[in-house]
């Protein structure tokens, strides 16, 4: 598959605390993966795994400390090494990469009708001339299932349901005709009964064949349903990546196994989980595998030496000393 996005060695750090106890939080470390054209890739992990941070760096909302993010052409190719950039290059990046936020009630301005942000995206990126912008807005809203679009464009966010608001966010993101849509927990604020319709919109985006989606989620079942490939993150590091069904149904990394066991809804609640309780150590992380302190199978080597990402099949890799290549 032709790659659209490649992320190489991405590292992100945040300062925490105040002098003299100022320390560094390592939100992402040595993260590499790619997204192919027309592919949905899910970043999965728990709070603090760095999945939102990575999405925000790709969208150029946050700067990175190390690494490189490349958007491949059809013609030209854009590379972001996180230096200051001129307005034009930045605009071009934002046209190609669009972000959808978790809470549509917070991401839409309450004092404007919802046609406004869609029209603004069209205008800023030169996608509509002033005479036809209303028609384009209506068409954009209808494309995400808000019929009739012209009527919806005049409504305010508070007049819409949560699902309708998230549809507006998606229409706003698609208005710039982006190559990559990054959706950060797009359904977690929505009622259970309508989540699947919103998720299905992302498969429609993929159906164009040229657009890709980076889905950031903690919900393994959603990732399993719509993603082609999955990247499992823990403490800001890639633990396992590969085809969605292979990674989620038969995980190889002990952390991915823990996630899958916790998400299984048929087991015995009294049965212990396959790893100790605990949280990732992102401040002053040790030298070894970040999961070693909780891992039931950890050895001295795991605590001392960081494992490399090892391929277990051509498109499936695991970062664990205990997993042997096949």
């Amino acid at each position, binding site marked *: 598959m032709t790659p659209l996005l490649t992320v190489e060695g991405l590292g992100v750090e945040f300062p925490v605390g105040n002098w003299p106890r100022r320390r560094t939080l390592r939100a992402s470390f040595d993260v590499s993966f790619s997204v192919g054209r027309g592919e949905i890739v899910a970043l999965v992990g728990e709070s603090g795994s760095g999945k939102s941070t990575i999405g925000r760096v790709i969208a150029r909302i946050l700067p990175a400390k190390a690494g490189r993010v490349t958007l491949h052409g059809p013609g030209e190719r854009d590379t972001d090494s996180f230096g200051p950039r001129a307005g034009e290059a930045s605009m071009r990046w934002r046209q190609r990469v669009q972000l959808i936020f978790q809470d549509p009630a917070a991401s839409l301005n309450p004092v404007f009708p919802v046609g406004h942000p869609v029209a603004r995206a069209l205008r800023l990126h030169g996608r509509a001339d002033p005479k036809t912008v209303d028609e384009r807005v209506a068409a954009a809203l209808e494309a995400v299932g808000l019929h009739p679009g012209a009527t919806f464009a005049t409504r305010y966010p508070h007049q819409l349901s949560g699902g309708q608001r998230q549809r507006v966010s998606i229409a706003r993101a698609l208005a710039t005709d982006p190559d990559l849509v990054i959706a950060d927990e797009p359904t977690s604020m929505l009622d259970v*009964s309508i989540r699947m319709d919103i998720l299905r919109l992302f498969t429609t985006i993929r159906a164009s064949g040229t657009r890709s989606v980076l889905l950031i989620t903690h919900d393994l079942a959603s990732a399993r349903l719509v993603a082609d490939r999955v990247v499992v993150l823990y403490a800001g590091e890639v633990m396992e990546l590969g085809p969605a069904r292979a990674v989620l149904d038969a995980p190889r990394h002990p952390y991915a196994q823990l996630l899958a066991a*916790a998400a299984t809804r048929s087991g015995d609640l009294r049965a212990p989980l396959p790893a100790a309780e605990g949280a990732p150590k992102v401040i002053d992380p040790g030298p070894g595998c970040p999961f070693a302190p909780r891992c039931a199978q950890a050895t001295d080597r795991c605590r001392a030496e960081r494992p490399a990402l090892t391929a277990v099949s051509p498109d499936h890799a695991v970062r664990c000393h205990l997993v042997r290549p096949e």
Partner: protein
Amino acid sequence: MADVLLEITDLRVRYGAVPAVDGVSLTVRRGEVLGLVGESGSGKSTALLGALRLLPFPGRIAGGQVRLEGHDLLALDAAGMRRVWGERVGLVPQGALSALNPVLTLEASLAETFAAHPDVPAPAGVSLRERGAALLRRVGLDPANLRAFPHQLSGGMRQRAALALALALDPPLLVLDEPTTALDVVVERELLRRLVQLRDEAGFAMVFITHDLALLREFATHIGVFYAGELVEVGPVAAFADGGAHPYTRGLLAALPPGPGEDRVPVSIPGHAASAAAPPSGCRFHPRCPLATARCAAEAPIRAHRGPDHAVACHAVPSGAAR
């Protein structure tokens, strides 16, 4: 019946003039785990908090009866309610951070709880610190956390601290309002496992409010389904094994993404959740219901029994045990 702990009959709750809960009846017996499920605004929390007289102004009870261990809760005076809260019912409120006082250490919070209930005798020869340490150990927290302030704890640890406070006086009934909604899947699982262990040891009953019906099918002994301020289906968990009877219950389960080994296509319920403030005519679910007929739009269904303890409010579901 002697084993009935909490009995709510035809409860109606309003926020000012706006109806939020309409004619809800529920029973919790000793040792049961009643799971209440519904979408946001369906009234599941409001019904329980209203029944326990914990709703802030302008929430008020507009009708119905609430009996806790045989006592009429709605007739109890303020001193009586203060004894009920904590001693007879422990509450883990929604959002564990808001349940804990940010300027008190866990030890001080626990001390406050003990001090507010002087009629509950402390075990002889046990210091406050030992009592607190034992409680934290029960919920799976290191006793060193007695000196911690809430902001120093992770989300999962705060939820456990809130649970320790709710269990401090060994109430026979524990009410948990969306205790796992903000938690990660692994932390959620660990908390549920702990709750099951605690219930095995102490034998308390639980009311567990959530929007996760799949979780309740594992965790609860009974399930109640709320829609637009009404209880549309309630029954033992076995009645939900094949998806429940009410079209809304069945729709909720069909809307969940399939897990490993399952091969079905999830289907959303069309439209969006109706509001209890301005409900549709007749059955409140009829605009979204695949089985709706003209009768459903005109006439509200009454709750009918389909089996022992299993009641459904739907014209399309026949009463009696047959199906």
